[in-house]
């Protein structure tokens, strides 16, 4: 989506990569996950944990931050070695982006789950796929993660898409009309990442053309990227 349609190339005067918080907009796509999040003290034993999973950009980390503001929490994005003293001062541990990558040691996760069971502390696991399906080699880790309930953040519905587009355009100080938003929402790819990419492409095209963001301009961008669905 990076190539302009015009012969004049624009300067890449982009705002820093948009940090729009999808979790700020509660719709059918994420309301169940948000409901579980707000009842964190009810997460079931033995691990007092919950797994929220969903695609990149759906607001998982922001949900973690939301919980961190409401509980005595610590947020980590890796666990290569288990050290119980690191969690001594918190009630909730948020594991952001858990996967089978090197950032997460299986041994450490095994000890971490036991630690949760032993201390009654709470943990929120944030991941792109359900942690019950993560292919760890240690059976003890797999079984522990399978015991943790989970909730998916679904692909964005129209209401969420519209709110996200509005926010991303606002972040970029781009004025767009309701009609333009309606046009985009009806035709764009229904994914969180696509929203940011499309807004970036439209902004860039508007800058190259020195034109306001209008339906013909949006149509040209969508058309160029093969995403138009008339």
């Amino acid at each position, binding site marked *: 989506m990076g190539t302009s349609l015009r012969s*004049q*190339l*624009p300067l890449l*005067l982009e*705002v820093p990569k948009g940090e729009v918080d999808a979790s700020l907009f509660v719709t059918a796509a994420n309301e169940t996950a948000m409901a579980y999040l707000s009842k964190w003290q009810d997460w079931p034993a033995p691990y007092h944990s919950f797994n929220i999973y969903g695609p990149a950009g759906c607001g998982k980390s922001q949900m973690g931050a939301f919980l961190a503001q409401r509980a005595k929490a610590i947020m980590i994005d890796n666990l290569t070695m288990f050290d119980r003293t690191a969690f001594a001062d918190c009630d909730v541990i948020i594991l952001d982006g858990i996967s089978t990558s090197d950032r997460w040691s299986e041994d450490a996760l095994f000890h971490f789950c036991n630690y949760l069971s032993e201390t009654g502390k709470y943990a929120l696991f944030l991941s792109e796929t359900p942690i019950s399906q993560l292919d760890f080699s240690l059976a003890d880790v797999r079984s522990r993660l399978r015991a943790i309930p989970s909730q998916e953040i679904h692909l964005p519905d129209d209401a969420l898409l519209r709110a996200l587009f509005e926010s991303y355009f606002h972040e970029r*100080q*781009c004025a767009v009309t309701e009609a333009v938003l309606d046009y985009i929402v009806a035709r764009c790819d229904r994914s969180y990442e696509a929203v940011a990419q499309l807004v970036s492409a439209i902004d860039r095209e508007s800058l190259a053309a020195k034109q*306001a*963001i209008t339906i013909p301009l949006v149509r040209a961008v969508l058309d160029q990227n093969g995403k138009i669905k008339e």
Partner: protein
Amino acid sequence: MRFTIDRMSLLRPLGHVSSVVERRNTIPILNNMVLRAAAGQLSLTGTDMDMDIVTHVDCAVATEGASTVSAHMLNDIVRKLPEGSEVEIQMADGHAQISAGRSSFRLPTLPVEDFPAISAADLPHHFTLTAVDLRDMIDTTKFAISTEETRYYLNGIYFHKSANGQLCAVATDGHRLAMSQMNLPAGAEDMPAIILPRKAVGELRKLLDDQEGDVDVRLSETRAEFSFGHVRLTSKLIDGSFPDYTRVIPTGNDKVLSLDKAAFLAAVDRVSTISSEKTRSVKMALEPNLVRLSASNTDASSATEELEVAFEGGAMEVGFNARYLMEITAQIHGDIVQMSLADPGAPSLIQAPSDDANLFVLMPMRV
């Protein structure tokens, strides 16, 4: 209120104030300027609600007082009076009587109490710079201000303290960028980064035309005030964030060519005669110590011109908008233009060889 003043003395401040006042207003009082005569001086005040101007001029005051009258009408009248006229203005009973020689005009007035109060906002940041420096910064950057209204945060010059502690002015329309820097004046250490709107930039620049002294600058997050000579101009600022422009200034462009400024300007101007009005593109084909400028049009017309340059890099072709190229080149101080290029799709850096204070970034065109 009654005062007398010679036409020439009145014409300049009248021109400045009426320039700020919009020609079409739905609120009648906004068509007017305030004239206030007191203690041997006439003060003139105008506003467009975003920008206020107050200017003073000596005059012979017979009766002190204040009233408002149509700014553009009074300016047009005084402009058309014969040179060397002595103008007498008398304002009373809802009318202004303007007399000079055998000419006489009668205009309606509105009460000065109806005129919007000029903002006396708190402006905590104060510094001084010379009119020459401010004029240079504006001249170097003004041409690159965006005129596309929906991208409002680019509709002005971005004045701020740069990372290297300089006072820096930047303007961009998304196709080219102009930057001018000077030593940070004392008092500007904690200045807020501001975007001065295009209209205020234009008015300020006109006012600075014949100024040689210092300019007092007072700032807040939302307003800027410039005072010098007999003038005080106050403007609202653009409420937006200027993009991180430093990311688009290239630092590693290794194809550097030096051109004679006058010869380059003239050659681009000549060759671009052929370019289509729509694109105005000019192609630069670089070879060792030679640049071949060319343009073509859809009607099969074409033009080429060769220029000797100092360039030792490999062959490359790159296209630019001819108007952008000429506007930037015209702002280069000195006789030599240095262009640093990377590839035909990357931003070019243009500056004078020994001038680190001013630089320009130009995006190419696909040709």
